[in-house]
C-alpha cells in the first residue's frame, strides 16, 4: 500500500508543531525519521495513524482518504498501551477479535513464555513486544514505530529488529522514529524533522555527520 502525506500541519494551541510535512511511503519501504527531542516526531506519527487530526494537509492510502484508511495503519507508541492489572492474554483479547490471529506474533515476538503473566510484572522489553503484537491486531500494511528500542536491552532490540525485517520482507511498509543508529540500518530512506518540516537526508548518514545534522540542521 502506498501512503502519501502532503503538506501536513499540526498545532497544539498557539504552538505550531508540524509546519509543512510531505512524504511518500511505497510498499516494502522503511522510512527513518530522526530529530531532536520535542521536534514533533511522535506528533507526526499520531497524525499519520489517525489518532490526532491534522490541522491542514491530506493523508491518502492508495489514493483513498477518510477515517477508514487508518484501519490499515498500526502504531507502536513510545509508551505502551497496556492495562497493567490484566495479563498479556487479556490485553491481547481486547484488541484481537479472533484470538488465533495473535498466535503467530506470540512466537515471532517471543511473548509465549510470559503470555499469562500480569503486565505489571513484565520488563520494559517484554511490554514493548506486547505493544507490537497489539499494533498488529488489525493486520496493518503500514506500521508506525515511535522509538521502538528506547530503554530496551540489546537482545530485545535485536528481536524487534528481526521482527521488523520479516514484516518488511512480507511487502509491508514502516515508518520508524529513532535515536538509535542501528535502527537506521533497516531504513531505505532517512528524514530529519526540523522546524516542523521533513528534510531528506542520505540513508547512510551516521556518526558525527548525523550528530552535526541533528545539532545544526545541515551537513558540515
Amino acid at each position, binding site marked *: 500500500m502506498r501512503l502519501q502525506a502532503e503538506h501536513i500541519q499540526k498545532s497544539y494551541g498557539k504552538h505550531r508543531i508540524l509546519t509543512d510535512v510531505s512524504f511518500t511511503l511505497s510498499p516494502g519501504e522503511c522510512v527513518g525519521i530522526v530529530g531532536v527531542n520535542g521536534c514533533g516526531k511522535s506528533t507526526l506519527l499520531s497524525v499519520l495513524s489517525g489518532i490526532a487530526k491534522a490541522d491542514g494537509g491530506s493523508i491518502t492510502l492508495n489514493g483513498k482518504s477518510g477515517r477508514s484508511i487508518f484501519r490499515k495503519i498500526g502504531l507502536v*507508541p513510545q509508551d505502551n*498501551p497496556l*492495562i497493567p492489572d*490484566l495479563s498479556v492474554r*487479556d490485553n491481547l483479547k*481486547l484488541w484481537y477479535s479472533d484470538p488465533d490471529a495473535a498466535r503467530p506474533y506470540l512466537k515471532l515476538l517471543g511473548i509465549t513464555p510470559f503470555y499469562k503473566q*500480569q503486565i505489571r510484572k513484565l520488563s520494559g522489553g517484554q511490554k514493548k513486544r506486547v505493544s507490537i503484537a497489539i499494533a498488529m491486531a488489525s493486520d496493518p500494511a503500514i506500521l508506525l514505530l515511535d522509538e521502538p528500542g528506547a530503554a530496551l536491552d540489546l537482545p530485545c532490540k535485536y528481536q524487534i529488529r528481526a521482527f521488523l525485517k520479516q514484516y518488511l520482507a512480507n511487502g509491508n511498509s514502516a515508518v520508524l522514529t529513532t535515536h538509535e543508529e542501528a535502527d537506521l540500518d533497516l531504513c531505505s530512506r532517512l528524514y530529519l524533522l526540523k522546524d516542523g518540516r521533513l528534510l531528506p537526508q542520505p540513508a547512510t548518514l551516521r556518526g558525527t555527520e548525523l550528530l552535526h545534522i541533528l545539532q545544526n540542521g545541515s551537513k558540515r
Partner: protein
Amino acid sequence: MKRFVILCQLELKRALRCLPRILLGTAVLLAVIGAVIFCGQHLLYGEQELNKAKIAFVLEDDSFFTAMAIRLATTQSASTRSACEFVFPDAEEAARELENNELAAVATIPKGFVSSIASGENLPIRIDFANEVGYEALIFEEIANAAMQILGSTQAGNYTARDFYRLCDRDGKPLQAAYDRLESAYISLVLSRESIFRAQTVGATGSLNVLQFFLAGGCILFLLLWGIPCIRYLTRDSKCLLAQFRQSGFSVISTITAKFTGLGFLYLILLLCILLPAWILWSVPVLPLILTALCLLLAACSLLLFLYEISDGGIGTVFLVLCSAFGLCLLSGCICPLPLLPGFCSAIARFLPTTYMMNGLTSAFLGVFSAYNAVAMLLSTAVFFSLTVLIRILRTK
C-alpha cells in the same frame, strides 16, 4: 458490540484484581474514620463520658405555669431528649456545677417571667454556657426558641382581650381580673397541648431515630470516601491507551461505560455488606432497600468517575474526593440534620445529589421506595456521566 462486551468483561476482571488492595484500603479508611470519631469525641466532651448533655433550669419564678412551660419545652423533642438531660437545681448549685463543667448550660428563668409575657414586658431568660461546650449549645438554643414561641402565643390572646376591654371602657379592675383569667386559661390550654407530643415524636432527624440517621448518613459518606481505596482501579488510563482505544474504534462513551460497569460491580459488593446489617437489625423490607441501593450505587459511581476524570489521579484526587465527600454530606444534612444547619444549606441541598441519596436511603430504612428520590439520583447519574464523557473528549482532543 462484541468488542464492547469483551471490554466490559475485562473491566470487571480488572476490578476484581484490584479488590484485595481495595479491601485493605477500606480497612485503613475505617481505621482513620474511627480515629477521627474518637478524637472528635474527646474534643467535644473532653474527659466526660459520652452521656447526655446536662442542662439546668434555675426557676426564680416559682409559678405553676412556668414549671409547666419548661416541662413542655424539654419534653417535646425526642431527639433533644435523647441527647440532653434536664435538671432543676437552685442558683448556687447550678453556678458551681457550671464552673466545674458538670453542666453544659444553665438557663435562669427570672421572677415574674410568665406574667411578663402576658403583660408584654417579656423579661429575658439568661443562659450561661460551660467553657467547653459542643453541639448541645445548638440543641439548647432550639429548646429555648421553642419555649418562647409557645409562651409567646399567650400574648396574642391577652392583647386582644386588653384592646377589647379598653374599647368597651372596661379598664382598671375588670381588666386586671380578665388578665388573670386569661392567663390561666391560655397557658393551661397551650400547655395542655403537651399531650400531643406523647403520641407524636418531633425531631431533627425526621422519621428516623438517631442511630438510623447516623447509619444512613454514614453510609452515604462512606460510599463517597470509598473512592479513595479504589484509586488504583479508578486512576485514568494512560494517554497512549486512550489513544489506542480511539484508534481501534472504541468511543469515549463505551470506554467510560465499561469503567462504570467495573466500578458498579465493586460498589455492589460494598452495598451488600453495608445494607445487610440494616436488613437484619431492623427487618427493613428487602425490595425497597435493593432498589434504593441500586440507585445509590449509580449516583455514587458517576460522581466518583467525574471526580477522577477532572483530577490527576494522584494525591490531588485523594484530597478532592475527601473534601467533596465531606462537603457534600455536610451540606446535604448527612452529618448534621438539615434543620440544625443555617438556612442557606437547605437552599444549596436541593441541588446536591447526596441530598437525594440520603432521602432515598431514609425512605428505604422506613420500608418505602421513594420514586422521587430515585429519579433524582438517576438524573444525577446522567448528569455526572455526561460531564465525565465531555471532559474526556475535551482532554483527548
